[in-house]
């Protein structure tokens, strides 16, 4: 009798926990259309082979501006972008710590726009980086470093607590992607084929203080140290996008930091002509981000530097890698053509629910 009760109790608990798990999966945002950027971080774990030569870290200035497929096609460089929307520098740091559990890249590229943020900014952005991470002590540290005052750790550990009120916003996407999502990105690169030429950007307002904050610097120090400890070359970059403003005062600080720590810092805003980037044709949102044509040009230009400076091996003769990357190229080309077809047919990217 007691045994029977125990079994019934155990089954009931399993059913209850299982139901809560399914409910949580149902209610969590899926980020598969419209705001797809919330799916960026999670795609990394699905990679079969993670020993990449180059890992990019940072915000939209990495995941929209560098094409890993082009780096492969031109130089045989294997790369992955661990970027996410408004990724803050402590999130980049912890993502690198986590990445090192899987691989030890030869080069890490960090986009320095995030230095402007010295403290947590917005829960919605936190979620897009943190919810995609697999559960680990590193994720917990990243959550602790990222939370706004109004946020709670438990809401990240049990997202059902946070998203239970989404039930009236559920869409078909929530059901069709309940236990898995289709692949949306190209080694962390977010493709856009549309074009919106850059015009005149707003005047740069004067800032009360141009110095980057101590917290941001502290994590840049830790990033630098982590790379050194692991024999990884750290390259600081500023992507060639013209808004938000990248102040000269900020640029000088990064130059000085790089010089003091024996790092390379490349402000691509100063190399746009060399890279052949034309913001009349190579951006999809008037200069905030590059489109695929700009991202391919930037990858071509940067790839030559990476290959030469760090003597990165050309893996194109490696059969295993070639097989893996051919599939990536096929997916990349298919998406590019699909987007071009949609653009021709509708005038905007319908599948992505992006009106231009």
């Amino acid at each position: 009798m007691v045994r029977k009760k125990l079994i019934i109790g155990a089954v009931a608990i399993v059913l209850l926990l299982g139901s809560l798990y399914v409910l949580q999966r149902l209610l969590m945002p899926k980020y598969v259309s419209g705001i797809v950027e919330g799916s960026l971080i999670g795609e990394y774990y699905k990679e079969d082979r993670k020993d990449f030569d180059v890992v990019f870290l940072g915000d939209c200035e990495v995941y929209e501006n560098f094409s890993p497929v082009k780096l492969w096609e031109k130089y045989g460089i294997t790369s992955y972008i661990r970027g996410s929307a408004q990724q803050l520098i402590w999130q980049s740091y912890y993502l690198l710590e986590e990445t090192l559990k899987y691989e030890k890249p030869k080069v890490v590229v960090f986009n320095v726009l995030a230095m402007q943020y010295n403290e947590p900014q917005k829960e919605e952005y936190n979620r897009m980086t943190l919810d995609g991470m697999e559960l680990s002590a590193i994720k917990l540290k990243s959550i602790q470093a990222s939370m706004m005052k109004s946020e709670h750790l438990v809401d990240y550990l049990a997202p059902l607590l946070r998203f239970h009120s989404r039930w009236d916003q559920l869409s078909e996407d929530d059901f069709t992607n309940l236990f898995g999502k289709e692949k949306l990105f190209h080694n962390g690169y977010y493709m856009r084929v549309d074009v919106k030429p850059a015009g005149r950007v707003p005047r740069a307002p004067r800032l009360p203080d141009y110095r980057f904050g101590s917290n941001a610097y502290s994590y840049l120090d830790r990033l630098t140290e982590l790379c050194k400890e692991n024999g990884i070359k750290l390259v600081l970059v500023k992507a060639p996008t013209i808004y938000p403003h990248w102040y000269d005062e900020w640029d000088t600080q990064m130059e000085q930091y790089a010089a003091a720590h024996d790092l390379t810092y490349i402000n691509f805003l100063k190399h746009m002509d060399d890279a052949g980037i034309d913001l009349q044709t190579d951006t999809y949102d008037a200069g905030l981000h590059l489109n695929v044509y700009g991202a391919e040009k930037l990858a071509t230009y940067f790839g030559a530097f990476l290959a030469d400076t760090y003597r990165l091996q050309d893996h194109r003769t490696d059969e295993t890698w070639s097989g893996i990357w051919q599939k990536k190229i096929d997916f990349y080309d298919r998406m590019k053509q699909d987007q071009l077809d949609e653009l021709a047919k509708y005038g905007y990217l319908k599948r992505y629910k992006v009106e231009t």
Partner: protein
Amino acid sequence: MKKTMIGLIALLLVLSGCGSKTTEEGSTSPSALTQTEGAAASPAASTPASETPEQASGDGFVFEANGIAIPMHAEAAPILKQLGKPQSYFESQACAFPGLNKIYQYSSFDVYAYEKDGVDYIASVILFDDTVATKEGVTLFNKKSDVIKAYGDKFTNNLNLYVYDQGKSQLRFVIENDQVTSIEYLAKI
């Protein structure tokens, strides 16, 4: 066992009922001076549902240009119509969020607008030269004492930034070497 299960279910229901709303309230303001990104950080995202932006515009700071009042959180269209064609217009979408930041550049000031439910509201006004002044007469290049004379000493200060709060708005001065180098009106969350 039954009691344990009921207790467990009750606990989970209570816990799930404790989740906070997706919209965050009382967070920091989206100053153009900090280039906070877009709609996700706009006042629209955090204006309490019970209060419309128009209601929020009632008791805040008001910038005036050529006799045209520009209150923070006010509906932008009628104001922009009165201001006439801007020298340039720029719009940007926040990374990963819908909605646009719209920036209208006039000769001496820029007007920033945010979008809520398809309607644009005034988010910020930044003054760029001393041909325009605040309603209380402060211009760029005035001294700190001029600011205090006009607005009093009830400000919050962080480094060179001096902030006055009024209703759902802020008036923010950057003062360097005893000289006003930036003036911004800001719609506060």
